[in-house]
């Protein structure tokens, strides 16, 4: 892994000039580099890139902290939280222990939401979740931004890119996808109108008899009904009959109103992060114990409407991923293959020699935006970054997939075709925390900046 990832970094000598976000990212990554066994990037690149980081801020690695966390060295959250804090306040005296306590395993709570109720031994004033997201300075910045009469979306994107505190996700996501207007005065009015528009669709499209549907519509509804029980089957909450109906309704109405693609399998997966986030406004505690029947029909309508609109907005940006023959996905798979070749020649050569096609594994990655590849509780964090990317998202996704794949560069090179397919089909992410995920996202971000600064890398040689 070391050797493969060195190359693109060596060629880049101008990292000092990158924007502040990259500096933040690099600092976080430098924090990760201190973690034994997690050295995924060469130090060579990271060091000159983050000259302003003082060593006390990036070295919060303490034995007691490690034990407290109870899992593998959980220091990245602390490193990133503290460095960003230092960055924000220009002070090196931040309390690094906060971030560590927060950076718990996501456990069974929805995207880290509301697990604070259990965390009695740690500071109970905050929900425990992924490191950076709940750092108090960052929470304050989120609050400040959201309280503004007109939210500055660029500023919000920059903040949200590194993770959104779970209790703020509903509002932040609605803003990021362009569903809720930034202007606070207009927000409630617009949301109310849009929700009503969705609600009006229910009697018009969904609550009608099969006789009033076309053959294609019947087929689509049947398909969605077959797929609903197979949507994140490992999360039992989704199996409740009322939840199933709700999911079917959102997907069917979306499909009816988007005839260019209609319903394509995988879109059901894409609805699930929105469902969980928007239900978290109304349901508390562990997601596994959620009961949608406790909600009034009005609330169900509203949450569904939010899911519908946000799903629509997300899919608007990747329209040709789900139209006939899915050209958008084919294009991204091709780009991924090219990118991997440029970043990691040995693994690229090995994959090719073994006869493994990128389409054979990366199709699902792009079709479901990696939801299937990581533990469900981490998906919210992943989507914070996705949704912050805005129009640049599809392109960024290619970098994320490259970063994801090359997490196992060393292992892959030891495997033959069959072993490789089986390995990639079930990548060992089961015990992943925010730490590993953020590593993937940060590295993807850096690669993108580097390749964009060196366009010759992108044109074929």
């Amino acid at each position, binding site marked *: 892994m070391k050797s493969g990832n060195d190359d693109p970094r060596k060629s880049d000598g101008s990292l000092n000039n990158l924007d502040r976000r990259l500096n933040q990212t690099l600092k976080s990554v430098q924090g990760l580099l201190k973690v034994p066994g997690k050295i995924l990037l060469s130090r060579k690149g990271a060091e000159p890139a983050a000259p302003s980081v003082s060593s006390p801020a990036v070295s919060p690695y303490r034995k007691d902290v490690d034990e407290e966390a109870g899992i593998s060295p959980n220091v990245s959250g602390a490193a990133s939280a503290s460095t960003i804090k230092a960055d924000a306040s220009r002070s090196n005296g931040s309390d690094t222990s906060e971030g560590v306590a927060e950076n718990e395993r996501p456990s069974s709570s929805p995207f880290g939401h509301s697990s604070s109720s259990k965390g009695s031994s740690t500071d109970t004033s905050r929900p425990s979740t992924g490191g950076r997201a709940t750092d108090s300075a960052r929470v304050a910045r989120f609050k400040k931004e959201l309280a503004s009469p007109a939210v500055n979306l660029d500023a919000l994107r920059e903040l949200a890119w590194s993770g959104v505190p779970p209790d703020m996700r509903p509002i932040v996501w609605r803003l990021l996808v362009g569903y809720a207007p930034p202007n606070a005065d207009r927000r409630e009015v617009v949301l109310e109108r849009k929700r009503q528009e969705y609600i009006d669709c229910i009697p018009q499209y969904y609550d009608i008899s099969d006789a009033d549907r076309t053959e294609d519509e019947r087929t689509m509804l049947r*398909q969605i009904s*077959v*797929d609903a*029980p*197979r*949507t994140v*089957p490992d999360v039992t909450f989704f*199996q409740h009959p009322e939840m199933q109906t709700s999911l079917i309704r959102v997907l069917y109405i979306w499909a009816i109103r988007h005839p260019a693609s*209609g319903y*394509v*399998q*995988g879109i*059901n997966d894409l609805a699930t992060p929105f469902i969980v986030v928007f239900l978290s406004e109304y349901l508390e505690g562990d997601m596994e114990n959620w009961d949608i029947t406790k909600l009034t029909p009005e609330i169900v309508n509203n949450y569904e409407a939010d899911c519908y609109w946000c799903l629509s907005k997300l899919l608007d940006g990747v329209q040709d991923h*789900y139209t*006939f*023959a*899915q050209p958008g996905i084919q294009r991204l798979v091709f780009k991924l293959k090219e990118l991997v070749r440029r970043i990691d020649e040995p693994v690229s050569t090995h994959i090719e020699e*073994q006869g493994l096609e990128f*389409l*054979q594994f990366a*199709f*699902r990655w792009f*079709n*479901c935006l990696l939801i*299937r590849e990581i533990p469900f509780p981490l998906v919210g964090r992943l989507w914070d970054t996705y949704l912050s990317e805005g129009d640049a998202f599809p392109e960024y996704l290619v970098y994320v997939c490259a970063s994801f794949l090359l997490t196992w560069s060393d292992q892959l090179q030891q495997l*033959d*075709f*069959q*072993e490789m*397919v*089986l390995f990639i*089909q079930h990548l060992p992410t089961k015990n992943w925390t925010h730490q590993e995920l953020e590593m993937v996202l940060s590295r993807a971000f850096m690669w993108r900046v580097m390749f964009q600064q060196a366009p010759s890398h992108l044109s074929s040689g």
Partner: protein
Amino acid sequence: MSYAYLFKYIIIGDTGVGKSCLLLQFTDKRFQPVHDLTIGVEFGARMITIDSKPIKLQIWDTAGQESFRSITRSYYRGAAGALLVYDITRRETFNHLASWLEDARQHANSNMTIMLIGNKCDLAHRRAVSTEEGEQFAKENGLVFMETSAKTAFNVEEAFINTAAKIYQKIEEGIFDVSNESYGIKVGYGGGAGTAGAGRGDASLAPKGGCCG
């Protein structure tokens, strides 16, 4: 593991008929009542024995939804065997067989062995397609037919193994040019049983040795 031959399979059929469950039952000997729906393709492999020869099966399990056809079609070409699956409790999955067959005939090599499978035969009380209808369709189209249950494992081994036996028989009859990989067949090392296993790397080495036609 060394093998005498490697056969490539493809599993096709409407969405939700149990293709992935059949594969899981065959490779892992377990049943997952609620299986993730397949996006694109998934892969499985297992060793079997035909005529005392070790045969490796590499199986591509395809997504059933129409929208994925353009992706999954490319898997026909290199397949020696196909399992065409319908669900005996859902009539429409049987009605679509002709279109699947047409797809297969158009994109696969003409000697591909096709096994017709009526799955979910444990749900007899919900049966919507009779065994006779399945047999009839198979007969008319020159397919081998079996009813299976991925849940109880009934006939699952047989479905995969009988398909392999058919392919093996065709090899013996000289129908295939086994040096041509496009038939979905590779000749391996260690044709005889009991050859010392070469372990990892064998799968990739073997075809190179056997198929430089």
